[in-house]
């Protein structure tokens, strides 16, 4: 339900806020009370019983604290092994994104169904177009034989009454890598070998049955504690927290909740653009047939897997903006911790990688941060005197689909204005797959390929709060206020 505020959105945000409140207050013995504060009264408002609603919320609370899901077959209060979450270290274990089985509606898997709209018309084109004779007229009504049906959808597309409908699980429809399967009770189950944690299933499930783990608890404990913690905020943040939260006010708010400093991830993105531009100029087409961008972690994992061992090197080996920025911070403040704040679920997984762990300590989404702001009653009334950062226009536009390729090309053009670069881009993992298939077949040689796992780019990520079009416009506007186009422009190079 992207871009519409539903009870599902509300539940998710209440959990973040309550967990953040608990972390700030330090009254950890209240943890078992939380489901009663979120789901009030005796009457169920979403599901068949208030007990089940609370049981599901309890699982979401555990996930938000970074703990593992439990099976409905084990009896345990939320507080059991809760002490594990009370640390400033990373506690969560894989899998990151998972189905809460007893919250799942066990929706039908994909198939076509004839609805009451069928008039049994004389033309009945549904039967004519079916390649396997799965559709026939029985008792004056179109009927589909599920044994024969290929699920090609031709019958549905020709029906003059739109009477044939596609039934599909929203989570599976949102998953571009085909990672949703079923368990023995027909409920959705994620194949973690295939899943790249883009998070699209969790924002698409109308029953709020899928959730990811969070580091809100550990981050807040670190903010309250002794050591220094720095925030690096990804460029899609503009406009996410409402009209009052201008970039400079967001910076002031981050300092108010306890961060010791704020960096723009776009700053790291600027370095990545330069490095990917150099990589492209150096290696394409001599060493590598094409170059794929690397900043979207869900895309890069998926691309390496899809391209296979031989072509995996075509995915740029540049650092991601998150890691590049974290390294800038750690170089300036050696004993600090770094928290990446972004729109992305997959970044949580990226930060889990062995090579990245020491650079990025926490990853939280804008939605989780909003819960923290709400818990701390931040009202965005304070301005920060210093600007949030000094990143370039193209670095800030990384957040919008097309922005990464644009930034890399902009750097290439700054150095070699005569060089023509062919680019192709895809958004959404299903579209990325098509692009990769063509590239693998040798049809995209010499290209720069930009892949974004989420439609619209990072502004459409699973952890965002605002509708895509609005968010993209806000990012572009903020980017246009930057002093220069890319990092090479000021360094004595002609634009």
């Amino acid at each position, binding site marked *: 339900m992207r871009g519409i*505020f539903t009870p599902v959105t509300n539940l998710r945000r209440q959990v973040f806020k309550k967990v953040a409140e608990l972390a700030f207050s330090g009254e950890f013995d209240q943890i078992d009370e939380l489901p009663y504060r979120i789901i009030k009264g005796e009457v169920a408002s979403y599901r068949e019983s208030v007990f089940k609603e609370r049981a599901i919320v309890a699982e979401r609370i555990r996930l938000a604290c970074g703990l593992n899901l439990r099976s409905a077959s084990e009896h345990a209060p939320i507080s059991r092994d809760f002490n594990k979450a009370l640390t400033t270290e990373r506690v969560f274990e894989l899998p990151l994104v998972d189905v809460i089985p007893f919250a799942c509606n066990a929706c039908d898997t994909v198939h076509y169904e004839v609805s009451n709209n069928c008039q049994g018309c004389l033309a009945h084109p549904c039967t004519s177009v079916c390649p396997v004779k799965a559709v026939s007229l029985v008792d004056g009504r179109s009927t589909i034989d599920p044994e024969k049906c290929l699920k090609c959808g031709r019958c549905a597309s020709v029906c003059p009454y739109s009477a044939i409908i596609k039934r599909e699980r929203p989570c599976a429809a949102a998953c571009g890598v085909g990672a949703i399967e079923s368990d023995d009770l027909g409920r959705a189950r994620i194949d973690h070998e295939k899943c790249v944690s883009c998070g699209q299933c969790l924002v698409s499930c109308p029953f709020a049955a899928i959730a990811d783990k969070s580091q809100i608890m550990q981050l807040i404990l670190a903010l309250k504690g002794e050591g220094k913690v720095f925030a690096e905020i990804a460029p899609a943040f503009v406009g996410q927290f409402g009209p009052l939260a201008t970039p400079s006010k967001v910076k002031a708010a981050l300092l108010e909740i306890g961060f010791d400093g704020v960096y723009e991830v776009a700053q790291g993105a600027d370095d990545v653009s330069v490095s990917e531009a150099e990589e492209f100029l150096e290696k394409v087409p001599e060493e590598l047939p094409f170059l794929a961008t690397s900043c979207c972690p869900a895309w890069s994992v998926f691309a390496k897997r899809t391209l296979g061992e031989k072509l995996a090197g075509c995915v740029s080996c540049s650092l991601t903006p998150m890691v590049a920025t974290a390294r800038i911070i750690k170089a300036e403040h050696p004993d600090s911790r770094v928290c990446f704040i972004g729109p992305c679920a997959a970044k949580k997984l990226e930060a889990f990688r062995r090579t990245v762990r020491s650079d990025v300590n926490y990853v939280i989404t804008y939605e989780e941060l909003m819960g923290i*702001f*709400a818990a701390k009653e*931040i009202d965005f009334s304070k301005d920060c005197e210093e600007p949030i950062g000094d990143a370039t226009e193209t670095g800030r536009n990384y957040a919008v689909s097309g922005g990464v390729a644009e930034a890399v090309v902009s750097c290439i053009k700054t150095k070699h204005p005569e060089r023509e670069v062919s680019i192709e881009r895809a958004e959404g993992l299903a579209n990325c797959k098509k692009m990769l298939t063509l590239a693998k077949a040798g049809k995209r040689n010499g290209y720069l390929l930009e892949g974004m796992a989420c439609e619209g780019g990072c502004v459409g990520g699973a952890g965002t709060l*605002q509708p895509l079009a609005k968010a993209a416009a806000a990012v572009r506007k903020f980017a246009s206020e930057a002093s220069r186009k890319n990092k090479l422009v000021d360094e004595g190079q002609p634009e």
Partner: protein
Amino acid sequence: MKPRLDVEVCVCTQCVMNGALDIADSVESLKKLKSQLRLKSSVHVDASRGICDKDKHDCSPLVIVDGERLEKTTSEMVMSKVISAMRKTD
């Protein structure tokens, strides 16, 4: 002069988290249904200030329709309020 209906949506942190901007958008979207709804007056949405009283209980999302204060609103609640108010001003 066409009568104008003023709708003010609070955009404080609690209200934004609880969907205030979505409510503002859904009221804006009524403009597209002007002919279906046979509305003669126009609606003006202001979502630029925080108007909740922080010291009182949480009433988010807070919306003021034609001077009337509505607490803990939803899109459907505000839209139907706006439509009935616009019909009155006809």
